[in-house]
């Protein structure tokens, strides 16, 4: 176990370096420079541009720029090109905004997909099964922003509540309870919308896992013993079907960053997805590279966690 951990940790560390080098090369080799974003600005004289380029090491060779980036990242002195703010606090602040959205969406996905998927698997071939299959595929086939616009219009029309942004303008002085309710309303629709695709995918996955398990001998044995259907499905079948889902907790971590760009843009949610989108537009390389590194760390940590969790819950698996 310890050997497995050390080896995997080291492998992932190497992979992380490769990823960051690749990202660095990609961003810097692409045409366009950070100081060219606003070429029409009359206040930017040639010497200002030169000063900027010198301040951000843009005239150094690529490997030196990479070294500067790594050094600044670990000493915490990495500054954004755009506003010279330290990058890490900037990302942290946006990360805290994204977190409730992610948690809300995850809760909705997991609470809705399991009942839907289990029910569909138990009644394989029924109208419910085929209907939920169709609805699941319909949900992943709608362009996210198309559905979101329709839902925004509907929610605003029927309930008359604001859904754009994180809070209603002018609510700063309201009592805590009102502010909290306002925040909840703002949170509901975006998390529901980012959960839509997840519900569809996860409920399909639950269904297929359950189908595999329901055909096993031990389920037939449980039925033959005369157990009632609920005990068979929930105690004998579901427990075994659950194994792969334990690992999905780990695999979902990177969604925290990658999955949010579109929805944060639609709902004007000042989260990490919008931060990175704006950073890409402004060619703010330190922010882009750091967000990308965090995403890679989350992905690698996620796979490691899911491997470990699998070994914890499934005694048949030995990590060597």
């Amino acid at each position, binding site marked *: 176990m310890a050997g497995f951990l050390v080896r995997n940790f080291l492998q992932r560390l190497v*992979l992380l370096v490769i990823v960051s080098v690749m990202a660095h090369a990609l961003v810097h080799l692409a045409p366009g420079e950070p100081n060219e974003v606003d070429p029409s600005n009359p206040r930017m004289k040639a010497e200002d541009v030169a000063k900027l380029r010198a301040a951000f090491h843009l005239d150094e060779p690529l490997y030196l720029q990479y070294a500067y980036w790594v050094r600044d990242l670990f000493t915490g002195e990495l500054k954004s090109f755009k506003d010279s703010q330290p990058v890490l606090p900037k990302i942290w602040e946006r990360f805290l905004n994204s977190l409730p959205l992610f948690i809300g969406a995850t809760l909705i996905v997991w609470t809705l997909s399991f009942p839907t998927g289990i029910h569909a698997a138990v009644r394989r071939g029924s109208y419910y099964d085929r209907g939920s*299959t169709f609805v699941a595929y319909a949900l992943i*086939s*709608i362009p996210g*922003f198309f559905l979101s616009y329709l839902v925004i219009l509907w929610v605003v029309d029927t309930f008359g509540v604001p859904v754009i942004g994180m809070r209603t303008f002018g609510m700063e002085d309201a009592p805590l309870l009102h502010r909290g309710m306002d925040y909840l309303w703002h949170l509901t629709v975006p998390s529901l919308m980012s959960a839509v695709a997840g519900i569809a995918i996860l409920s399909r996955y639950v269904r297929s896992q359950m189908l595999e398990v329901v*055909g096993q001998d031990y389920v037939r044995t449980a039925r033959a013993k005369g157990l009632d259907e609920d005990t068979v499905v929930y105690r004998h079948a579901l427990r075994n079907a659950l194994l792969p889902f334990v690992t999905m907790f780990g695999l979902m971590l990177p969604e925290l960053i*990658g999955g949010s*760009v*579109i929805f944060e843009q639609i709902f004007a949610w000042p989260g990490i997805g919008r931060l990175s989108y704006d950073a890409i537009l402004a060619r703010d390389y330190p922010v882009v590279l750091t967000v990308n590194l965090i995403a890679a760390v989350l992905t690698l940590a996620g796979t490691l966690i899911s491997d470990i969790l699998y070994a914890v819950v499934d005694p048949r698996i030995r990590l060597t």
Partner: protein
Amino acid sequence: MNTLRSTAEPTSGRAPDVSPQSPWRLFWQVLRRDRLAMGGLAVLAVLAVLALGGKTLTEWAVVFDPAAVRLIDKFRSPLAEASPLLSEADRPPGGIYLLGTDELGRDVFARMLQGAFVSLSIGFVAVGISMAVGIVLGGLAGYYGEVRLGFITLDTLIMRFTEAMLCFPTLFLILVVVVLLPPSIYNIMIVIGLTRWMGTARFVRAEFLSLREQDFVVAARALGLPAWRIMFVHMVPNAMAPVLVTATIGVASAILTESALSFLGFGVQPPFATWGNILADGRAYIFDAPWLFFIPGLAIFVVVLAFNLLGEGMREALNPKLRTRR
């Protein structure tokens, strides 16, 4: 689909008694019973005709002109008649706008026809690229896995690269490239393709690892066939099943990705019309001209759904565990 036919036909030609046992025949029999998948296939057949017909009618023999600007006829609702003041050259066929006009008086039906071909070609070219890269890299890793390059094996090298690519959030990576490169439809196709080959590569590698030890490959090697021939003529067709499923669903998600990019303003730029950018432009007029928003949105929805249902049907038909229980 070509590989489908080429592997199924020789069997049916020479030995008709055996033909029902051919795996592709079996696959088709199962798939045919899946009504949702067949519905998807029918929609896609209609779409193929529409896209080709649309390409013909909007570019080669211009009946519907998607670029004609008619400022007196802007925001006409679907089935509205064209204004009598229009010059003969600008009149839509039959004098009727089938799906209305947009903010510049362009015929939405003509633009949707043109966009069908562009959207589909984005989907197919992107998936073609990702399949090609995935098959080549996965095949090399699976076939030449043990070859050492210095201190690491080829397999390790390719699979570590695949894992590194998986660490990038896809939309994030696409955005970086699309924003930094000059906007062009080819860049978008290539970028979408190059960011989604990792699944294919892993599938193909896994299939190759098991195929490599099978008798027909050993026999082919004993005959002295060149390695590329063994890989691409003998092994790839046997590893195609999961790849085709991924590809079918991949086309759907490439079309969705293009529309998401259009929403962010980095999709295919004018003069090309795609369903994604018609939809993204239409959202500004959702109250005044709802057809500009709903027509492309529903069109994308139906087509993507058709691809997804067909892909799911194929997956079920190829899954031996589920098949035996029918």
